[in-house]
């Protein structure tokens, strides 16, 4: 009996020793606890500004910003491994659902009081960053599509206020190789604005697919006449270059188009989105919120350093600096008290447009919807297929793929 007990003790000790090798050593040194690694995929100007602000505001924490071109895939692969994963990542809110489902994210409210957040942020940014009732992102800035026009061709007083005015303008001006208006008409991100303008949706916040909703179908039926007055090809480079080279009078594009257009010498105008005549709702594009997500292991093992970084990111100066270099709108309300921000017509247009935007769904199923909706749009806009048939088929396809995913 003694031998059996001895044997069991030995086995237990051995097992403990061996198993110890497979788990993470939680005893971090003080230096490790004070080092925060943040992955990002932003341009150098943004990352430099972010690092500069953090170094200034939290000098006792070592912040390491690491650029990852394939951030989302990399996180999927190593998010569960504290040795390989970052402590935080700076990215758009729309992937929150994927990582929340993987169980690798810590709710921000575990680190910062909810009321403090509610008091500080533009409400829709917190709404966008919430998945399954929990806030997983500390917003930094947000972006949305804007209605832009070339003042050489379109005078301020001629900017269409409604979609019918826009259509009339396109009919008059689209000829000889110039276009009255161009957009990425068969890309779901851009088409969503029209769908929302009719009260439809691609996927709502609860994961319901809306491709065959009467409102979505009506939007796509209506949108077709606009597509007929645009170039057949509508991918990013084509649309942006047409606008920047003065071959299109107006477009719906992101803030990234502003500096390039102005650098090309364009007198660029930015206006409110046209209102859909039928619904009296403006074209309502998606809103993307860029911010910081905290990985669970960091929240648990580097709590103090993480809190310091998050608190620093809540400072209006950080929001203003990052918004300036990114060309986007700050998420912290107090930033709008700064003249630097209010004097920026692009930022203020984004802030105004954001009143009618819809946060990009952050559910994992949305990954499926981008592709299904894009295929549907190609069928309708480029292959000339029937709208109702295409929408019904896409709805069925999306539901099936989501079922398989679950």
């Amino acid at each position: 009996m003694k031998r059996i007990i001895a044997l069991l003790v030995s086995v237990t000790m051995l097992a403990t020793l061996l198993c110890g090798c497979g788990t993470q050593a939680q005893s971090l040194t003080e230096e490790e606890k004070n080092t925060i690694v943040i992955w990002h995929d932003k341009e150098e100007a943004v990352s430099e500004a972010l690092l500069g602000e953090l170094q200034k505001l939290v000098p006792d924490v070592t912040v390491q910003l690491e650029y990852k071109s394939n951030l989302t895939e990399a996180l999927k692969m190593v998010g569960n491994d504290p040795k390989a994963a970052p402590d935080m990542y700076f990215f758009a809110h729309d992937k929150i659902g994927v990582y929340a489902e993987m169980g690798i994210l810590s709710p921000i409210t575990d680190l910062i009081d909810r009321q403090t957040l509610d008091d500080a942020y533009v409400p829709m940014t917190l709404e966008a960053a919430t998945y399954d009732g929990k806030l997983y992102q500390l917003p930094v800035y947000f972006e949305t599509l804007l209605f832009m026009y070339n003042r050489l061709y379109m005078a301020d007083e001629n900017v269409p206020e409604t979609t019918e005015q826009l259509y009339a303008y396109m009919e008059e001006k689209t000829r000889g190789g110039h276009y009255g208006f161009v957009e990425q008409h068969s890309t779901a991100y851009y088409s969503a604005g029209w769908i929302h303008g009719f009260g439809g949706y691609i996927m709502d916040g609860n994961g319901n697919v809306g491709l065959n909703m009467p409102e979505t179908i009506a939007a796509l039926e209506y949108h077709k006449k606009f597509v007929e007055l645009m170039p057949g090809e509508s991918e990013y480079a084509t649309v942006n270059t047409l606008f920047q080279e003065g071959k299109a009078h107006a477009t719906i594009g992101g803030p990234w188009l502003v500096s390039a257009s102005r650098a090309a010498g364009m007198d660029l105008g930015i206006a409110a989105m046209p209102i859909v005549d039928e619904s009296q709702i403006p074209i309502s594009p998606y809103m993307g919120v860029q911010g910081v997500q905290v990985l669970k292991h960091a929240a648990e093992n580097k709590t103090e350093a993480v809190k310091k970084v998050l608190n620093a990111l809540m400072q209006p100066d950080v929001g203003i600096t990052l918004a300036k270099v990114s060309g986007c709108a700050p998420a912290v309300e107090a930033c709008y008290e700064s003249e630097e921000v209010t004097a920026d017509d692009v930022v203020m247009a984004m802030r105004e447009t954001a009143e009618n935007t819809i946060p990009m769904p952050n559910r994992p199923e949305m990954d499926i919807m981008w592709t299904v909706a894009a295929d549907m749009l190609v069928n309708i806009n480029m292959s000339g297929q029937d709208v109702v048939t295409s929408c019904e088929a896409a709805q069925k396809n999306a539901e099936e793929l989501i079922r398989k995913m679950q």
Partner: protein
Amino acid sequence: MAKALKKITQLICMFTVAFVLFCPMTANAEEERSAIYVQVPEDWNEPCVWAWDEDGNNAFEAWPGGETEADEGNKGWYYIWIPSWANHVIVNANEGEVQTGELVLEGGNVWITIEDPENAEVSYEALTEGDIPEYVERFEIHVSVPDSWKTPCLWAWSAPDGTNVFEAWPGEALKVGEDGWYTGKAPTWVNSVIINANEGSVQTEDISIDPAELWVTVEEDGSYEFSYDDPDAVSAPDINVNVMAPADWEAPCLWAWSAPDGTNVFASWPGEAFTEGEDGWLTLAVPGWINSVIINGNEGSVQTTDISVETGKDIWLVVAGPEEYELSYEKPNGVTADTGEETEVSETEDGEAQPDAGQESDAMTVQTEESGVSTGVIVLIVVVCIVIVALAVYFVTKKKKS
């Protein structure tokens, strides 16, 4: 290494193309400008200025450069506004037949007095009286008219306010070029023109235009067509697109277009089906101006990403999957329908920025499976080690006892 070099070369080419596309060094409307005044010998007609900087950036697209305008308030003086960065100039005339040597300027407005090609004096003190006429951005209008339309003129104005560019009808006579097109210029505030001839006795109706370079073709009866693209631009001959597609891509089709203008070859997706070529290659002829293709199959339900190709060259594409392909401009050796699938696809390119649902889902599944497998293997190894050690201890103990 060769692959790495190839990739680097591709990247450099891409950046060069992007640079050329997005950083045109010819003048744009917003940049700072300097006035160049010139006084030329009597036999120098229609003086022009050719301007550039130390880096070789030219202010004008082609020799003889920008045409000067006579300053009505200062007889014998002509002026032109050039970008301030262009600090090297040559003044020329008579369609470039006479010219000065290179003049290096210090910046700001200058007055150049030319006695002959060898003697030109530069002054930074105003040698003219009154204000320098303001810079007005202009665009060119090219016109093709029937033979019976003599001395065609341009009449231009801004609608609806009715501000005219020229003092009196029939407006300004257009200058004929070597290519037979007549050309005139109008300020960028113009949005309406009429082309007329025979002293204004024949004319088009009002033409509503954008203030951008355009080509107007007028018929005998005054009807017209116009385009913002040069209709005489040389069209490239057809090219052949040769493809090896994956075996499970049924009826592969080609979708081809010109970026960034978005001109498609085919009317609707998924494009046109390939025909059987030699050695198992699928082939299709398309206009040589295309620079982007997508190969698709199964009625367009599977497809490659956008593939950029060089214009005017036959291409060979071995497609292994939506984002895996090998592109070459010469027929690859030894690739046939039988071997195509086994070809190592070394040159892959990333897909579009839009997330791919299938990939995302697969990646998630793979991740889950990988995590599960690796954890399971570790547990199994631990258990096996424990059992082996336990058994060894047990048998050694038992043996000693016996």
